[in-house]
C-alpha cells in the first residue's frame, strides 16, 4: 500500500479504460454469453432458440463421450506433468552439479520453450510418421508396430511426448532456480553428518524443493489442459476414436465443427469452474498476488 498517492479522480479511470474495455468486451461479455448459452438449445435448423435450464449439463453428464473426454484429459494431464517434470528435475540436478558448464547446458536446454505447441506437434508427428518416420522404424526393430493413426495408445503417447517435450525447458528453469536457492551449507552439513549424495537428495534437497514442485505441478496441469490445443490439432485432431479428445479440444470441436452451441457452452462453463479451482489453488500458494 502506497503512502503517497495522487488525488486525481478522473485520471485513474482513463488509465484503466483500455484494460477494462478489452476485459469487458473480450473476456467478461463472452464468458457471460457462454453461461447464457449453456442454458439454451437451438433446434436443428438454427432458427429457434429455447431455454432448457440445466438440460445441456444433464446431457453432458449422461454422455459417454464427455466422460471419455474427462478420462482422456486426466490421463493426458498427469502423463505430461509427470514425464516433463521428471525429465526436467533430472536435468536440473545434473546441471546443478556443474560449475563451469552451467550456462552452456542451460542455453542448450531452454530453447524449446520458444517452440509453438502446434509446431512441436508437427515435429513429433513427422518423427513418428508410420510410413517414413524414424521412430516407427526403430521401434519395428524391437518388434513394436507403431501406428498412431489406428492405435489409441500410440496416439496418446504421441501427444504426451510432444506436449511434455515443449514443457521440459520451463520446468527445468524453475527446478534449477529452486536448487540454486538451497544454501550449500545445508548440503555440507548433511555431508558432515554422513549422508551420501542420494540420501542428501531425498533428505535435504527434495523437501526444500517442494514449493517449486508444487508450483510447477499446478502450472503443468494448467498447461496440459489448456495450452496443448495446438499439439492435438496439429497431430491427432482428437482421434483415433476420441482417444485424444481432451476437454479443450472438444469444446472447440463441438462448437465450431459440430455446431452444437449449447453443449459447447455448457462444456465452457465446466472448464471455467475448473480453471477457477486451479487458480484458487495456485493463489493460495502465491498469496501475495491477490492482496493489494
Amino acid at each position, binding site marked *: 500500500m502506497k503512502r503517497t498517492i495522487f488525488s486525481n479522480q478522473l485520471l485513474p479511470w482513463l488509465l*484503466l479504460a483500455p484494460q477494462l474495455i478489452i476485459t469487458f468486451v*473480450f473476456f467478461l461479455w463472452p464468458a457471460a454469453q457462454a453461461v447464457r448459452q449453456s442454458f439454451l438449445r437451438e433446434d436443428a435448423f438454427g432458427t429457434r432458440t429455447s431455454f432448457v435450464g440445466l438440460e445441456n449439463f444433464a446431457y453432458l453428464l449422461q454422455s459417454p463421450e464427455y466422460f471419455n473426454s474427462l478420462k482422456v484429459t486426466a490421463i493426458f494431464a498427469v502423463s505430461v506433468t509427470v514425464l516433463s517434470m521428471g525429465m526436467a528435475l533430472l536435468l536440473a540436478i545434473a546441471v546443478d552439479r556443474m560449475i563451469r558448464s552451467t550456462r552452456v547446458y542451460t542455453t542448450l*536446454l531452454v530453447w*524449446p520453450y520458444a517452440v*509453438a505447441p*502446434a*509446431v512441436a506437434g508437427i515435429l513429433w508427428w513427422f518423427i513418428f510418421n508410420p510410413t517414413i518416420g524414424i521412430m516407427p522404424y526403430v521401434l519395428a526393430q524391437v518388434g513394436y508396430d507403431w501406428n498412431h493413426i489406428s492405435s489409441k495408445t500410440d496416439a496418446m503417447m504421441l501427444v504426451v511426448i510432444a506436449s511434455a*517435450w515443449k514443457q521440459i525447458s520451463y520446468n527445468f528453469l524453475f527446478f534449477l532456480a529452486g536448487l540454486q536457492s538451497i544454501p550449500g551449507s545445508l548440503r555440507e552439513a548433511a555431508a558432515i553428518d554422513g549422508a551420501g549424495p542420494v540420501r542428501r537428495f531425498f533428505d535435504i534437497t527434495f523437501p526444500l524443493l517442494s514449493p517449486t514442485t508444487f508450483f510447477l505441478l499446478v502450472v503443468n496441469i494448467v498447461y496440459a489442459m489448456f495450452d496443448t*490445443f495446438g499439439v492435438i490439432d496439429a497431430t491427432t485432431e482428437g482421434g483415433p476414436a476420441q482417444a485424444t479428445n481432451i476437454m479443450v479440444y472438444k469444446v472447440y470441436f463441438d462448437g465450431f465443427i459440430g455446431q452444437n452451441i449449447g453443449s459447447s457452452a455448457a462444456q465452457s462453463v465446466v472448464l471455467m469452474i475448473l480453471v477457477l479451482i486451479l487458480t484458487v489453488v495456485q493463489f493460495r500458494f502465491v498469496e501475495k498476488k491477490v492482496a493489494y
Partner: protein
Amino acid sequence: MIENRPGLNLLAHATLILGVCIVALPVWVAFVASTHGPTDFMSGTIPMWPGPHLVENYSQMLGAGVSTSGTPPVGTMMFNSLIMALSIAIGKIAISILSAFAVVYFRFPFRGLAFWCIFVTLMLPVEVRIVPTFQVVADLGLLNSYAGLSIPLIASATATFLFRQVFLTIPDELTEAARIDGAGPMKFFRDILLPLSRTNIAALFVILFIYGWNQYLWPLLITTSSDYYTIVAGIKRMADAVDGLPQWHLVMATAMLAMLPPVAVVVGMQRLFVKGLVETEK
C-alpha cells in the same frame, strides 16, 4: 560440490548430453528433412544427414509457398506473425503498465472492483470461451484483420500484477520528491516510473513476443483470408493440404522458419528471458 566423485560427474554429463540430444532430436530431423528434395522421402525412412537442397527449399517457401495448399508464401505469413506478436507484446505492456499505475498510485471509488475485473481474466483463457469470443469479434467486424488477431489477446492480469509488484518496490519518498519537484502524475509516470521499469519491460517483452508469435487457435479461427494467415497457424493448413502428396521437405522448412524468430529471441536474450519468465510467475 561436496565430495569429489568423478563417477557422479561423468553420470551427470552423460545425462545432460543425452537430454540435450533428446531435446534437439525433433529439430534436427526437421532440419535434415528441409534440406532434401521431394524424392528422398519416397523410399522408406527419412535421411539422417542434411541434403543439398537447403537454399532451394527455403527460398521457394519464403518467396512463393506451395500453391496447392492455399497458403500464401511463408514470407507473408512470417510478416503477419511478426505484426501480431509485436502488437500483442506492445499492447499488453502498454495497457498493463497504465492500469498498474492507476491501481497503485491512486485511490478512487470501486478501485477494488476494477482490480477484480483485471484479476478475473486469469481465470478465462481464450480456449474456454472460444465460441462466444469468436462471435463478439465477428460482430465487431474484426475477422481477417490485424486488430482482430491482437486486441482480444492483450488484456493480461499477469503483466498488470508484475508492474504492480515493480511499482510497490519503488520507495514512496521518490514519489514525494517528484511531487515537491513539481511533477504531476503523468510527468512522474514518464520521467520516473517508466525509466525505472525499463528492464522489467524488456524482460516482459521477450516473454510476450514468444506468446504472441506462438498463438495458434485464435488466428486459426479468425483468419479465413490467406492474406492474414500467421505462420504457426498456416503450417497446419499446409501440412493438411500436402498430406496427399507428401512434400515433407517444404513443410519442415516452414516449421524451421516458424521456430526461428522466437528461438533466436530466447537464445539471444537468455538473461532477460529467464528474468521475464520467473517474474511473471512470481
